[in-house]
């Protein structure tokens, strides 16, 4: 008699939604992807230290609950915001304080692949890799770069590749813009010395930066036919979550003013956030940062422009 095969129980999650009908509908959609979903009408699960991942159907919260969520500067449980409506001011406030994960809701809940990737990363800590956001079998094209002078050639290669796939020119332009921002950040902002000083962040971006051979950055790109992905990984892991939160909050607030917004600090991240369908930042402090940009290329630019923006920030806990 063969041994019994016991499937591990699915881990599930808690969904906060005070609207029973809407919450029940979303819970069933989530359940098909993640297993049991327990519905809560209050924010209380966010205060439970041992709660699993908590998802919040943000659009359905009462004004009082939104205020309360905005005041929660830290909670012990991972928080996943789900929203169908683009609510820039509310998201700006949340991302300024503590929110790390926002997934756009489509007709039948969030994209199942994005949801699984987010939960898997929150639970298991295996945060790196653009493959998690693209369909299985996608061939990703890697390019190792040591000098900032290689950026124009890398962008030319990327543009040629996007054109060969028939990506509409405006979407291809966004892909190039994002890749340029990622590479510029990796060459000029990311490098840190042992004393934590940043040797290149004040350099004009026309001045060449050449990294050591063991510090090279990696650009990767590829498409699964629905999404075009581009990522840049650096070996520094120096991006500070607080700075990301500030830049994202600024990004959600709308029109950027270089005269009043800290002289343009965070403009690069603002630019990136507005150029992507889904922006993912993975950080292993002191060791590695990976920035991933995903653009929906399944339709015209107008489809991209009308859709919401998903965002994830994952930071590995340091053992120092």
């Amino acid at each position, binding site marked *: 008699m063969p041994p019994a095969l016991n499937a591990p129980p699915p881990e599930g999650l808690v969904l906060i939604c005070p609207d029973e009908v809407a919450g029940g509908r979303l819970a069933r959609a989530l359940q098909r992807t993640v297993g049991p979903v327990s519905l809560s009408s209050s924010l209380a699960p966010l205060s439970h230290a041992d709660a699993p991942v908590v998802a919040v159907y943000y659009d359905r919260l009462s004004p009082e609950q939104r205020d309360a969520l905005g005041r929660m500067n830290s909670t012990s449980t991972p928080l996943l915001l789900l929203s169908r409506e683009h609510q820039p001011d509310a998201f700006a406030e949340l991302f300024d304080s503590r929110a790390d994960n926002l997934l756009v809701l489509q007709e039948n809940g969030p994209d199942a692949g994005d949801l699984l990737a987010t939960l898997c990363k929150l639970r298991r800590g295996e945060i790196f890799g653009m493959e998690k956001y693209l369909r299985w079998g996608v061939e990703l094209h890697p390019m190792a770069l040591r000098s900032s002078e290689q950026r*124009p050639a890398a962008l030319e290669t990327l543009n040629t590749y996007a054109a060969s796939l*028939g990506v*509409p*020119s*405006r979407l291809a*332009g966004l892909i*190039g*813009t994002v890749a*340029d*921002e990622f590479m*510029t950040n990796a060459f000029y902002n990311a490098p840190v010395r042992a004393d934590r000083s940043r040797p290149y962040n004040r350099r*004009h*971006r*026309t001045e060449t930066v050449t990294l050591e051979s063991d510090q090279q950055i990696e650009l990767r790109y590829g498409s699964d036919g629905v999404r075009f992905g581009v990522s840049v990984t650096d070996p520094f892991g120096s991006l500070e979550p607080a700075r990301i939160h500030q830049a994202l909050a600024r990004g959600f607030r*709308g*029109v*950027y*003013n*270089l*005269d009043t917004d800290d002289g*343009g600090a965070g*403009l*690069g991240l*603002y*630019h990136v956030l*507005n150029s992507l369908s889904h922006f993912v930042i993975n950080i292993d402090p002191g060791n590695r940062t990976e920035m991933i940009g995903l653009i929906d290329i399944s*339709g*015209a*630019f*107008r489809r991209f*422009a*009308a859709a919401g923006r998903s965002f994830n920030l994952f930071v590995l806990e340091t053992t120092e």
Partner: protein
Amino acid sequence: MSLTWSIQTPESGPAIARASGRVTEGVNFAEVIALAEAGPLALHLTEVSQISSTGVREWILFMRALSEKPHPVELLEVSPTLVRQLNMIANFGGAATIRSVVLPYYCDACGNEQIQILELEGASSADIAAEQPCEACGETAEFDDIAQNYLSFASR
């Protein structure tokens, strides 16, 4: 391709500078700024395809430099890439008068991209045609952005 300029100085009317390519940290505006010193200037921007965040900084400095010159500056046929920046970045157009913008159209049937020019004087989002015949296949090419937001910069 980095930004390149094609300059014309007709005997009458403003000097014309046509830009083409990507606005990045390495862009050189000196020649165009010098034109604005000499007389009225018209910047044709149809072919500006991309702009980086460092390019945004350089562009705003460029617009500031132009605003300090004694002659008027006009922006014509502003590309969709730059229209996005006008909507996202305060003062992106500086003190220049924006005369016209490019309206992008995309045909789902054949993937053709085509443009139409919209003169801005007295125009509103209602003047953006939702669709037009595709120049390549004759099917319908739809306006390829969000019409109600496209001209937001004009009302700020």
